[in-house]
């Protein structure tokens, strides 16, 4: 029997989903549904847009206006939706490869414009759909099927990237820290401008196996042991933070949203005519 | 049947594209057909640029100049680059700074258009208006009334008087042109 949440917000006829046992993506997708429920938003006015990859299959299971686009381009499609009809609440679900490799240019420009999109990046440090190639967030020296001797690329910090490029709400949580994830997504939905939430996910099938990270449970434990909430980080000595990553609300500085700024132009030129 | 194939040539930034548009709009005001085209290199300023206008009572199929009736050249470089298909009995209007070496029968008018703009009016940017004033004075390709209206429609607000003066000056110095 599906739970009331699943019954209400998921397209249960399309379940079970395609994700592997132990994958963190289902947990993250549920957290998004819970946040939407808490937000009280009109579901008919919610669009969920995705690109290509494991994470990008999520919209197919969610009962909203959903758009599964081409690889890397979700933010660009979503920009068209938001600007054409600013009444819509547009959520983008994307992955580390989709969002920061092939779609990296769209990411920085969506941040720069501060267009009202709520972006959730499911970061599992690997290309899962194509079978385990290294991504822009695969840690240095970790392995992938295209990095059999270890990856020599430096990994992106997606949150730093987004914050620097102009996103006005940025946060990070994991598939272990679901309550935090729900509250971050909820806050992101309340921000009018561009929000990005990085949701650290575990891929036991490819990333975990290639890099001897153990079972799905071991990977969740790794998230628990290595995440440091930003509120306690300032009280910790630098050596204690080594090898750890920050979670929590990393940036919250609202600025005028793009589509509403454009509306001001329309109002101005229409008045002048 | 009236038909003029006109080529305006000079250096990028001299406003010949606008001059071509004004001529074409004047022709339409006169009830004629007109087509305007241009070609240019990658430079926004400098280089050699041309703007072409075909004016005809008939429908204009081919939009580019083939048998040039009227060639205007404001610079040596543009003259050399674009004088190739001036008709034997065509009209060549050059700035006085341009040296012409031709054995054709074309009528050549040498007019100090650049000097007139900078020295008489103190505004080099109106060279293009002086030039089309002179061109129309010498060829009657369009009516003066239509040309005046077309100029006033296209020039920036606040510059109408200056451009009217430039047009008159073009007519005036064309009358004293050295053939």
């Amino acid at each position, binding site marked *: 029997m599906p739970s009331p949440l699943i019954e209400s917000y998921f*397209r249960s006829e*399309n379940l079970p989903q395609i994700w592997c046992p132990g994958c963190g993506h289902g947990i993250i997708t549920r957290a998004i549904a819970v946040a939407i429920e808490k937000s009280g938003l009109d579901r*008919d*006015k919610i*669009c969920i*847009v995705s690109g290509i990859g494991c994470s990008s299959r999520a*919209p*197919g299971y969610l*009962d*909203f*206006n*959903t*758009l*599964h*686009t*081409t690889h890397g*381009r979700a933010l*660009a*499609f*979503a*920009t*068209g*939706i*938001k*600007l*054409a*009809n600013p*009444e*819509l609440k547009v959520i983008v679900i994307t992955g580390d490869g989709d969002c920061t490799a092939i779609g990296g*240019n*769209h990411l*920085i*420009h969506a941040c720069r414009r501060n267009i009202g999109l709520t972006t959730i990046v499911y970061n599992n440090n690997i290309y899962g759909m194509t079978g385990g190639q290294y991504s822009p967030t695969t840690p240095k020296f970790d392995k992938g099927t295209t990095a059999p001797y270890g990856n020599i690329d430096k990994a992106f910090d997606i949150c730093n990237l987004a914050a620097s490029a102009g996103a006005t709400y940025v946060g990070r949580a994991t598939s272990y820290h679901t309550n935090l994830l729900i509250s971050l997504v909820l806050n992101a939905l309340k921000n009018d401008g561009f929000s990005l939430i990085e949701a650290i996910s575990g891929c036991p099938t490819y990333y975990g196996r290639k890099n001897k990270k153990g079972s799905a449970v071991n990977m969740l434990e790794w998230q628990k042991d290595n995440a440091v909430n930003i509120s306690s980080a300032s009280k910790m000595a630098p050596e204690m933070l080594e090898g750890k990553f920050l979670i929590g609300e990393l940036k919250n500085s609202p600025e005028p949203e793009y589509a509403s700024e*454009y509306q001001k*132009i*329309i109002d101005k*030129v*229409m008045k002048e*005519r | 049947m009236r038909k003029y194939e006109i080529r305006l040539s000079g250096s990028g930034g001299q406003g010949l594209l606008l001059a071509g*548009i004004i001529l*074409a*709009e004047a022709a*339409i*005001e*006169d*009830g004629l*057909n*007109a*087509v*305007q*085209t241009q*070609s240019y*290199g*990658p430079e926004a300023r400098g280089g050699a640029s041309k703007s072409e206008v075909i004016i005809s009572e008939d429908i204009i*199929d*081919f*939009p*580019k100049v*083939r048998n040039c009736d009227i060639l205007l050249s404001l610079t040596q470089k543009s003259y050399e680059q674009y004088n190739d298909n001036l008709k034997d009995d065509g009209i060549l209007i050059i700035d006085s700074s341009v040296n012409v070496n031709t054995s054709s029968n074309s009528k050549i008018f040498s007019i100090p258009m650049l000097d007139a703009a900078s020295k008489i009016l103190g505004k080099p940017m109106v060279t293009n208006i002086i030039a089309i004033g002179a061109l129309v004075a010498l060829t009657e390709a369009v009516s003066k009334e*239509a040309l005046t209206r077309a100029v006033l429609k296209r020039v920036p607000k606040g510059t109408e008087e200056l451009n009217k003066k430039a047009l008159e000056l073009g007519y005036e110095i064309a009358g004293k042109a050295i053939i």
Partner: protein
Amino acid sequence: MTNSFKLMQGNEACVEGAIAAGMKFYAGYPITPSTEIAELCSEKLPVVGGKFIQMEDEIAGMAAVIGASLTGQKSMTATSGPGFSLKQENIGYASYAEIPCVIVNVQRGGPSTGQPTSPSQGDVMQARWGTHGDHPIIAICPSSVKETFDLTIRAFNLSEKYRIPVILLMDEVVGHMREKIELPDIADIEIIDRKRPNCDSDEYLPYKAEADLVPLMADFGAGYRYHVTGLAHDETGFPSNSYEVADKLIRRLMNKIEIHKDDIITWEEENIDDADVLIIAFGGVARSAKAAIKQLRENGIKVGLFRPITIWPFPQERLRELADKVKVMIVVEMNLGQLILEVQRICNNIVKIDGVNKVNGEIIYPEEIVTKVLEVI
């Protein structure tokens, strides 16, 4: 004396046509020789309550146009050769997911960066087969400023009617040329809007075709919560791994255009009745052909013009009929022989087929066509 005629550039006529057709959204990226279209859209769209956005790249421009169209807004982008290549993946998406949109390609010399300010017609095949996989497409080619206005409206109408991306395949000659135009009264223009569902939302099947093979399209946000994907999908819109579903979808998409060919395909004929020689030309070059025909007719040579206005799908039935009437066909195009492949496919072994081709960045002159005609007769 004043009159209702005015001088207008081809690219400007495209924007005027798009606004007359009801365009409310434009996304694009600057590229010569189409840039005036973006500039004018940025100026004119807010005036009619529409939106313009300059995206970070060509791909994003195409993506944003598809997104905007899903909200119910008529959307357009414009580009030229290199940008048209970049847009192709998303054009395929629009074709497969049946999202109406208009893509203007003001062709320039290529390949690669090529000759940015020079005319070319090198994208004939890119317009047809630029994206991967079998897919339907419509491409129409104007040869005058007035026709650019008319065909831009037609591009939107066809796109809305058949839920398909429509390519307005212009060239630099027509895009940058200014000529006399008289715009029609807006009230006299036929405007077609996509058919939207009015059933209950739980009865809506977003990809169930109507009798005309076109499914009804709901706007995102209108209360029909449905799924759109570039994966093979069934009538529900959800992905399917069924061979049968995949096959049925592509065949329906192709048939959707095939059965409406008579509505989609248009062409112009001139001096056909007694013609021995048929010149086939489209876009800006058709003007060279017309000038050449005048010259040849004055000398008693019986030459006619067949100008495809819709080049994809190609007007093959009419051309096949004409093949029985003429002795020679000459395909004139600013490329090294692309449209001629289609003419050969249709008329080979029936008439002699020759070409006039030019790729130096210059328009084909009437004299070059005259020379070829005199050579082959």
